[in-house]
């Protein structure tokens, strides 16, 4: 059994973080440079952490598989970042942001973490503006805001449709500065392939140089994983093509618990799938739902008609009808399910019938075409490039797609996993979003973790470690981990198979989408749990991985990642089967209230499910961290 100590500070919710910061022991400044910290990843979470730790004086080594830290998947975030600044004077507050986020997560996140997130949100905006992030501004020169799903206040800060890019470039600039000063050693094109655990503590990693194939060992006093989400386990998603789960999956196999793996977000507004060749799905930012209206025809027989031929009275603006209080800004899980429902009723539009309209004609009447262009021009351009359609004239067609993973490695309040010395930040951990993430809150969490949480909490661990006492890379544990990595590579290259890697990834994606997608039930989950191991066995017999080990080999990189997805997929379904309730994104068809909404079971399932690896071929062990709500009442989520 893993030891899950959440280490939530005592005291009133709003004072926990302040109190904890005051009580954490400090590392003596002269000692800081004697500690080496490995940071894997340079997305929002990793880059902000690496830069901030280096500013404090720790020795930092940062690793990314990308050719530059500026390319992390965070760059693709479009819509914005939340902060409880209340610059609009519309009644926002730290408590309200906290409450919206915990309610948005359907009461499956840890109260204290979410409150801290809301508290530090305001510092993030200050930090980013000081770095030169060009947020949108009003004519008076002050910062502008927009609304996002799941909120009734306007608290989202944005930089056109490129908020993630600008925030990442801000963190990258801070990181670059520290690299220039020699305070961070940066390793690009370097993929972590194993975690090294010595005496029960995380003390290093094994890395493959993606250009030369060389394997190297790196020791440190603590290891930070900020390696992003695992949504590409579904193959088709809005993630960057190379996002993967290998770092966290291999850490899981070294003892780190994987929490709530089945909590995967399906985003309602993406461009629908058109063919089997497709390599990714493109998100149309949720911000579009501020002004676009979502509808399908009332009658199935109209679904193939030209939208302009469908009279106003024959249209069903179903979100406005079902959720009048939030309308088109209902949270993602709810909006996605509603889209699935109307398509299941045969009212979906487009050639595949898997699509709904997102219509801007009213917005154009109100704001003019130029006004809509000013707000969303780049999104309309993207839509045009992909679909060859002009959304100023015909409504966009959208459909839900895999977008984010709330699950991830289990961490305590200090963001440390159950393996001492292993910290996990950003999308790679499980801590703040419960069973559903609200828009504009992942960027907030990544930067909160990296700039404002870890730099304090890592000291809590390091003070207990003798300075400069980290193990040498000659230690047996490093040898064993390196052998493991070499073994995996050799096995992949040796399979005498025929099929390209994509063949298996696509099939895995379909199994998961059908078995563990927007709606789940025990029968389909059990079916997926049969199919996944069979597909995995087939992969190891029939995959074709060309090329060699000692060179740049993209097939080998992909094969390793897909091999891990083939294992992780099974854990997703195991978790989804175990959680015999509906909550947030996890919609078990067996548990539905009379109105067709999620029916939670707080008596039995108010816990974070932290799965522990038990060895190859063994069923994972379920550890439960009870979710104790000291301040808020676990209410039924209501957006009507």
């Amino acid at each position: 059994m893993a030891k899950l100590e959440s280490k939530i500070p005592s005291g009133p919710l709003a004072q926990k973080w302040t109190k904890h910061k005051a009580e954490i022991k400090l590392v003596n400044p002269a000692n800081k440079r004697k500690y080496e910290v490995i940071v894997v990843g340079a997305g929002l979470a990793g880059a902000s952490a690496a830069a901030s730790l280096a500013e404090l004086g720790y020795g930092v080594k940062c690793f990314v598989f990308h050719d530059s830290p500026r390319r992390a998947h965070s760059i693709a975030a479009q819509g914005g970042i939340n902060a409880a600044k209340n610059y609009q004077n519309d009644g926002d507050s730290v408590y309200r942001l906290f409450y919206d986020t915990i309610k948005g997560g359907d009461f499956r996140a840890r109260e204290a973490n979410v409150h801290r997130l809301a508290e530090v949100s305001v510092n993030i905006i200050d930090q980013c503006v000081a770095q030169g992030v060009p947020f949108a501004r009003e004519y008076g020169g002050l910062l502008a805001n927009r609304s996002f799903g799941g909120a009734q206040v306007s608290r989202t800060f944005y930089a056109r449709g490129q908020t993630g890019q600008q925030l990442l470039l801000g963190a990258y600039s801070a990181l670059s500065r520290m690299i220039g000063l020699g305070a961070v050693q940066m390793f690009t094109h370097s993929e972590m392939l194993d975690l090294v655990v010595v005496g029960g503590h995380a003390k290093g990693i094994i890395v493959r140089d993606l250009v030369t194939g060389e394997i190297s060992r790196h020791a440190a006093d603590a290891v930070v994983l900020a390696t992003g989400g695992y949504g590409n386990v579904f193959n088709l998603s809005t993630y960057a093509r190379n996002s993967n789960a290998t770092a966290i999956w291999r850490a899981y196999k070294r003892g780190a618990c994987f929490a709530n793996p089945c909590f995967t977000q399906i985003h309602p507004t993406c461009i629908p799938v058109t063919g089997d060749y497709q390599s990714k799905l493109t998100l149309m930012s949720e911000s579009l739902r501020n002004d676009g209206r979502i509808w399908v025809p009332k009658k199935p027989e109209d679904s193939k008609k030209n939208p302009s031929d469908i009279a106003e009275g024959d249209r069903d603006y179903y979100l406005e009808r079902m959720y009048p209080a939030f309308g088109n800004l209902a949270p993602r899980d709810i909006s996605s399910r509603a889209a699935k429902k109307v398509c299941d009723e045969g009212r979906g539009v487009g050639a595949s019938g898997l699509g709904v309209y997102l219509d801007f004609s009213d917005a154009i009447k109100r704001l003019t075409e130029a006004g809509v262009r000013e707000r969303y021009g780049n999104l309309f351009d993207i839509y045009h490039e992909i679909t060859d359609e002009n959304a100023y004239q015909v409504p966009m067609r959208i459909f839900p797609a895999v977008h984010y993973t709330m699950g991830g490695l289990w961490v305590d309040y200090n963001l440390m996993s159950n393996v001492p010395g292993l910290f996990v930040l950003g999308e790679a951990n499980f801590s703040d979003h419960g069973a559903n993430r609200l828009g504009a809150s992942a960027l907030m969490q990544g930067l909160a973790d990296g700039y404002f949480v870890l730099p304090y909490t890592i000291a809590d661990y390091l003070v207990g470690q003798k300075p400069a006492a980290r193990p040498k890379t000659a230690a047996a544990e490093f040898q064993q981990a390196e052998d493991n990595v070499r073994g995996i590579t050799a096995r992949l290259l040796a399979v005498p198979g025929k099929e390209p890697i994509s063949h298996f990834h696509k099939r895995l994606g379909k199994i998961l989408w059908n078995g563990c997608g927007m709606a789940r039930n025990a029968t389909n989950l059990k079916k997926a749990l049969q199919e996944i191991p069979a597909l995995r066995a087939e992969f190891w017999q029939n995959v074709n991985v060309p090329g060699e080990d000692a060179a740049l080999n993209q097939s080998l990189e992909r094969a390793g990642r897909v091999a891990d997805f083939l294992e992780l997929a099974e854990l997703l379904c195991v978790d989804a089967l175990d959680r015999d309730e509906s909550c947030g994104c996890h919609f078990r068809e067996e548990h539905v209230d009379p109105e067709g909404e999620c029916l939670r079971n707080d008596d039995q399932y108010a816990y974070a499910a932290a799965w522990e690896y038990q060895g190859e071929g063994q069923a994972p062990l379920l550890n439960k961290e009870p979710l104790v709500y000291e301040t808020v009442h676990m209410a039924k989520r209501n957006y009507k």
Partner: protein
Amino acid sequence: MKVKLKVWRQMSANSAGGFKEYETPDLNSNMSFLEMLDVVNDELTIKGEEPIAFDHDCREGICGTCSLVINGKPHGPHRGVATCQTYMRNFSDGDVITVEPFRARSFPVIKDLIVDRSAFDRIMQVGGFISVRTGSACDANAVPVPKEAADLAMDAAACIGCGACVAACKNGSAMLFVSAKVSQFGLLPQGQPERDQRVLAMVKQMDAEGFGNCTNYYECSAVCPKLISHEFIARMNRDFLKATLRSAFTQAPTGASAAG
């Protein structure tokens, strides 16, 4: 539709490269150019040949990872988009399409179509930032920024660091990339304290990396997927001149060590 590809293949940085021809299978015209390469690569794999190495990640025009010179044009035939946003419907059945890496002295080929663009990172490391320690910032609304300045800074900040500007330039100049960053910070009040040392340090590093000079052909902004304007180059030149003059009088230290 089907097309014929003439693709640059090169085993490694030190080996000689050359073009190889491939016939594609039947394609859907809604495929992206990179999806077409995926399909070709899967076929090569099945045939036991090594797939074509090419860079990509986000596949939506924002990460700056994809590259490729398609029929002589960095990022392909269309204005204002990256290679990953190029679709097969822009080509015709039977076309012969030449695919090469971004070529420039400062971007050595790593393999096939992948080049090393780390010189850009090194330029950023000497000055592409505002020195602000985490936690030391004042309230975000304490310093108003005129909307026009913020908007123009955002225009500059839209650069995705892809390097097409360098590949398009007959001198292999990185002026568009560097000037975009210098201008973003130079336009904002927060960027003023380090304005001189930033431009001096970044230009010095740019020269040290072997990027060429700008001789005002503006091929760069023509191929830029974010349509970064070459007016930023003029802006940087003015900044550079002023900074040079001022530093001659004050002997201000330059570079990251000074910024720290």
